[in-house]
């Protein structure tokens, strides 16, 4: 149908419901956190929970409609290209989100922590925290009462190194799965995809182990100064994206069992694979700049 007439999707109830769910999530989260910090009760968690319920309803319903319409052959080549471009720009926006946190990390390491420590022409700020010396990782914070620094940081050459190997391998296995799909080898597709998911789950497990160690043994917490803040925000948001990616890969596996995707048309699979590579690249950045350097 491409080239002759245009295709415009039908009206849908999902976008407005998605907006309702985002509104509930935002309001509920704000209520919950405000009450938490002020140490009082609120019905925020109920609003938040309602938001999640609507969100899951939307996710199931909207994707169901998409899959049905695609099976009916409604999706033109043009729409397919729009989806691809949309996914790529979405990933670009995610990259920029991580850039904000990497930027914060570089700024404190290169500029502000040395300045508080008395270095350079802005080093006069050291008079505020006499005796503070700049180090990285910042174990001795300027005010150890308010922000008790960690006793040590995570050793990059143990779990993080293993995790690096796991994630890079998973990027390779998802590519094998993609090639198997293009050659219509369904068994290989399912096997490689399952392998990717297993690697991802092991990665997540090791991250949880590492967080547990950080909190219970090293005293490395969100509250332990700027090292803990940047460490947990960067690895935490990455971990959250891995969780999301793993869920997406798992849905792809279920759809493979269901007989979805042809060697020619499998945009959903490709989009998830792109997302997975993005998560992998961010990890490499984390491993270098957060763990090693």
């Amino acid at each position, binding site marked *: 149908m491409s080239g002759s007439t245009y295709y415009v999707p039908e009206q849908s109830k999902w976008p407005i419901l998605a907006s309702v769910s985002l509104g509930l999530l935002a309001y509920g989260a704000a209520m919950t956190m405000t009450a938490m910090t002020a140490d009082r009760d609120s019905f925020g968690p109920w609003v938040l929970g309602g938001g999640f319920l609507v969100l899951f309803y939307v996710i199931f319903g909207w994707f169901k409609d998409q899959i049905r319409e695609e099976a009916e052959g409604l999706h033109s080549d043009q729409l397919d290209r*729009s989806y691809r471009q949309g996914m790529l720009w979405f990933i670009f926006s995610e990259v920029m989100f991580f850039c904000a946190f990497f930027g914060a990390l570089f700024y404190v390491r290169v500029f502000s922590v040395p300045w508080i420590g008395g270095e350079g022409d802005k080093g006069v700020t050291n008079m505020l925290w006499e005796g503070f010396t700049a180090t990285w990782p910042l174990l001795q914070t300027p005010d150890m009462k308010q922000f008790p620094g960690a006793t040590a940081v995570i050793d990059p050459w143990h779990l993080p190194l293993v995790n690096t190997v796991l994630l890079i391998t998973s990027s390779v296995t998802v590519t094998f799965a993609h090639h198997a799909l293009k050659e219509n080898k369904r068994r290989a597709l399912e096997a490689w995809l399952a392998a990717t998911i297993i690697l991802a789950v092991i990665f997540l497990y090791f991250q949880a182990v590492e967080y547990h160690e950080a909190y219970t043994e090293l005293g490395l917490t969100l509250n332990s100064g700027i090292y803990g803040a940047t460490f947990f925000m960067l690895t935490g948001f990455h971990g959250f994206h891995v969780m999301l990616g793993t869920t997406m890969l798992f849905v792809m596996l279920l759809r493979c069992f269901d007989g979805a995707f042809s060697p020619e048309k499998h945009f959903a699979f490709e989009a998830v694979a792109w997302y997975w590579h993005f998560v992998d690249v961010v990890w490499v950045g984390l491993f270098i700049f957060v763990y090693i350097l």
Partner: protein
Amino acid sequence: MATVDVDLPHVKDEDPHHHGPAKGLGRWLYTTNHKDIGSMYLIFSLTMFMIGGIMALIIRAELFQPGLQLVEPNFFNQMTTMHGLIMVFGAVMPAFVGLANWMIPMQIGAPDMALPRMNNWSFWILPFAFLILLSSLFMPGGAPNFGWTFYAPLSTTYAPESVTFFIFGVHIMGASSIMGAINIIATILNMRAPGMTLMKMPLFVWTWLITAFLLIAVMPVLAGVVTMMLMDIHFGTSFFNAAGGGDPVLFQHVFWFFGHPEVYIMILPAFGIISEIIPTFARKRLFGYSSMVYAVASIALLSFVVWAHHMFTVGMPLVGEVFFMFATMLIAVPTGVKVFNWTATMFRGSMTFETPMLFAIAFVVLFTIGGFSGLMLAIAPADFQYHDTYFVVAHFHYVLVPGAIFSIMAATYYWLPKWTGHQLNETMGKLHFWLSFVGVNVTFFPMHFVGLAGMPRRIPDYALQFADFNSMASVGAFIFGFSQLVFIYNVIQNVRAGEKATAQVWEGAQGLEWTVPSPAPYHTFSTPPKVD
């Protein structure tokens, strides 16, 4: 700009798949139609413009005389904060997205936006986001009161409780902007009619392509910075607290890395609109089409390396001051190219002065004034005098009100006959223009003087020597504010009735949107038009 000859096989809907609008409320809630969504964006923006405008009038009423008359200082701070946030995120940005929704598919020969359902989602997030933001006015401790730039630690350690609602509101409106921008890029890159090459696209489309790129690049950074605030407030991190090794100045760096491209997000589509209107009423092709495209692209790229010119007085190393000063002044070059091109387009044209053209000419003159005061602010040593004074307020209101807002009004008058099928009432349009023109200048020009003399911004009281200029500015603000009722009247009147508009509407108008009937059919193109 290339002229386009169009061969339309059938503009009427013959395909049964393409029906008219659905009935009732469902049409607006579930719509996937770019015109419906564009209209909703524009109506939403106008509503927010009025709410933000009322806040501005509260500010000006308080500042009419020295001393404290009407409001408490804390409420005054809430008004300056909410006025800024609402005008930036609720009025200007949605208005441009609304215009993009209406015009881009028509201008490139597309049936609709590339991702129509996501388009609906992008719009409907906004009412929820702004309900959350506005509801903060009724919370204990009041609405955000730390300025629209929400510098830490004012917005973290010393913030009212409602700051968390503000943070999550910003999160979802950011999601809306990013999805809107992705949609616009996909539409422009993927939905152009055969023959509509990139360098044949109308400048409004070009400026939006570049604006959308800026949005996708910086809205996530805004999300990042409010997330850091959230963590500092509720989860014990120390991003903006030097006691833990963080830095309040870090906030300003991350915020302005978003903030400076953001101000170009609010002006680049305006450049596109003006570049459409001036050739029409000068009855000449736009002078220097390709240089206009390159100028917009260079402004956008430079916008990523100038952010710290908002922070000259914060205590940056000297090399930073010098770099950001010169990088900022470099932007004057492509901006100058644009102003000269608009002027050259008008030079020896057979000009007429219909309402859209009046707004466009006022834009060129008054935006240039705002640009020049920007150059003054860009000079780091001089900025130590101007920083945080009313001179800054005068500067950014000159680029935003007779800049962005005038361009939106110009665009509305220019394309309204295409939307409604009715010719404009020129008398009422001109009345609105002259009232606005006088009101804007009486409001904002005196602010230059009080600012240079040292009146600080965001303070509800001032020294006696500033009284005359301030009362003048307040009178101007009320003239400008109430003359917008004429605008609303004009729009409503035009929707309801008026002389039947032709397809071309304006004698000198060129481009695909002027080849379809007025009002444009619900589905403009069901098959791709041919563009030669």
